[in-house]
């Protein structure tokens, strides 16, 4: 029974489910650490998902697919930066506006350019030589038989942690997110830093979308993300703005999800509403008991304006 539930395939599924969350949440963490809350992640993901899907569908080139996602994500990030940093608009609404735009636009383009659901070959699974054959605890299946973007997502976490904690730029990001006035007084270009982080966030959200449409699901459909981007934002808070915390959140959430799917798959009969509820409930409960080590950017959502 138990060994029927906790199978290697469940953990492999966890890894797959977590991938888009990791991309999107890490990206969002960049923006938020510098003080910009972007609620438009879901919209950017949708645009990225469509862009890369369309590129792959028409050219069969995965490289172009990825580039398309990066470009579109970056552009939407730029838009968000312009609205929230230069025009100092309320970040919350700007994000929601961006979301609506992405939601509608991606579907519209899909209807006009593709029409009915199609599927693409997309990113193939890459079996890491040697590692992927490890039978022990199913390690091979769990970790080493995924597509490229899955590996990239997990590699992204230590990189982000390094940038935040070990580089001068990371220092600027933290300072700008904590006390923009002080950063400004020390000659840091607050606006520039925020532009960069928000654009990075957009690019990663775009890739998150691509990981869905061209790597994991290999189809596109209206509202493909089904609100995934909002969960991604929530996970940033779960992770206390720390890359490894975000990773933990994404894995926990995805694991419980994979678990409830498995429980259904092996025909255990519980009301599916409660099964579907589980990841959300567990995530909250986990945070209640989790040790709160956060790097909360105190200037989050606060536009920076010099006194005079």
């Amino acid at each position, binding site marked *: 029974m138990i060994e029927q539930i906790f199978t290697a395939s469940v953990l492999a599924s966890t890894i797959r489910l977590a991938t888009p969350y990791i991309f999107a949440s890490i990206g969002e963490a960049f923006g938020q650490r510098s003080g910009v809350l972007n609620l438009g992640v879901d919209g950017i993901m949708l645009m990225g998902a469509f862009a890369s899907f369309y590129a792959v569908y028409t050219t069969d080139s995965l490289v172009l697919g990825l580039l398309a996602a990066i470009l579109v994500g970056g552009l939407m990030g730029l838009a968000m930066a312009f609205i929230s940093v230069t025009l100092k608009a309320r970040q*919350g609404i*700007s994000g929601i506006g961006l979301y609506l735009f992405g939601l*509608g636009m991606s579907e519209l383009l899909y*209807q006009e350019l593709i029409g009915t659901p199609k599927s693409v070959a997309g990113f193939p699974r890459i079996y890491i030589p040697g590692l992927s054959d490890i039978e022990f605890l199913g390690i091979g299946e769990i970790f080493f038989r995924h597509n490229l973007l899955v590996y990239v997502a997990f590699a992204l976490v230590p990189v982000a942690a390094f940038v935040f904690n070990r580089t001068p730029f990371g220092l600027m990001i933290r300072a700008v997110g904590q006390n923009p006035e002080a950063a400004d007084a020390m000659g840091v270009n607050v606006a520039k830093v925020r532009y960069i982080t928000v654009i990075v966030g957009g690019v990663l959200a775009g890739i998150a979308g691509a990981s869905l449409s061209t790597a994991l699901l290999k189809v596109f459909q209206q509202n493909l993300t089904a609100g995934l981007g909002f969960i991604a934002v929530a996970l940033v808070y779960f992770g206390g703005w720390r890359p490894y915390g975000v990773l933990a959140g994404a894995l926990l959430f995805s694991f419980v999800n994979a678990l409830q799917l498995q429980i259904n798959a092996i025909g255990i009969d519980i*009301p599916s*509403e409660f099964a579907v509820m589980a990841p959300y409930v567990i995530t909250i409960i986990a945070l*209640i008991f989790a040790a709160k080590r956060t790097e909360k950017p105190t200037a989050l959502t606060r536009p920076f304006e010099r006194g005079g």
Partner: protein
Amino acid sequence: MALSQFRVRTGRIFDALPVGVALLLALVVASGLLIALQVSPVTAYTALLEGAVGTENAFAETLVKAIPIMFVAIGICIAFRGGVVNIGGEGQMIAGALAGVTTALVLGESLGGLVIPLAIGAGFLAGALYGGLAGFLKAYFDVNEILSTIMLNQIAAQMMNFLLNGILLDPAEAGLNNVPKTARIVRMAELPRLSITLPDFVADLFNVQNVELFARTRLHTGLLVAVLLAVLTYVLLWRTSIGYRIRAVGQNDRAARYAGIHVRRYTVLAMFLSGGFAGLAGVVQVLGLQYRLQTDGSPTGFTGSAGFNGIVAALFGGLNPLGAIPASVFFGGLLVGAQKMQREVGVSASLITAINGIIVIFVVSSQIFVRRRTQRRLSEAEQVVNEAQPEEMRQPI
């Protein structure tokens, strides 16, 4: 002071020019899309306008759409002023609707007219408790409210599906497994429709006899409740000690603690009230409009995203309950008009969504110019320098 504040605030809220310009720009940009789809922007926008305010019924529908948005927005004002970001309107609406419809169904006609206040009370309480939960987790367990409210939205939706498929399922539907819905509430529990008889002197102006506005429309008295509560909430926030404490906690919790304010309790209270208003939005949708609770299985199926639009409306309204009123009506019109536009020119729903996004972005971006104007105006009027400073809260969003 409250007076001058009032003057300035309203001054800001109704500072329509930049908003108008932004709106025009947004429509210009959007017309690019329309043209690309071989649709005449003129026809499209005419339809949009007609659909929003073109006819008596259209305007009624705009108001109908605005009602739940208004309730949520009022609550959002309280939460944000208290330094709590409430993204949980959707879930709280559902909680309120579930409690309200259950009350109405259980009571039936047993208590006569009492059913309406009781159901509404139940709706408020349920929403308040659901929102208060997030506030409690924030205050005493340091669980970020943005996370918890987003999660609680999903949980509420599943709860709704579970109950609608189960004990709340309309008995007449048992075994038919149609899209789940509750039984219809008794007529006695329906909020009365709202119609306005023009006072004679007005009627005479247009030389018409005793016309009754909104007579054959779906406009219901929920609108009056919302407007009334908006005013009361303004009083609560800026004229009472409770509001003072909520705002103090929202602005500077350390000073609030020094002032002897129970920081945690007021954090919870802010979320409690905020959730309560969202709950009202839910129950009023049921009692005033749908007369039963039903959905397509998605939360939005019932809420129509009022839980989110309420946030946008509140922020457009300058986090001021009075500002929330016009802002909500604006959004109601936008959404209803867009539907009309979709029907008239046969564009797909997705285009409408995209255009709404563009409009939201442009209008919110225009706020900076509103602020600049207010600043200029105020530099002249010295005794109200205060409003010149951009609002700075612990956590505006």
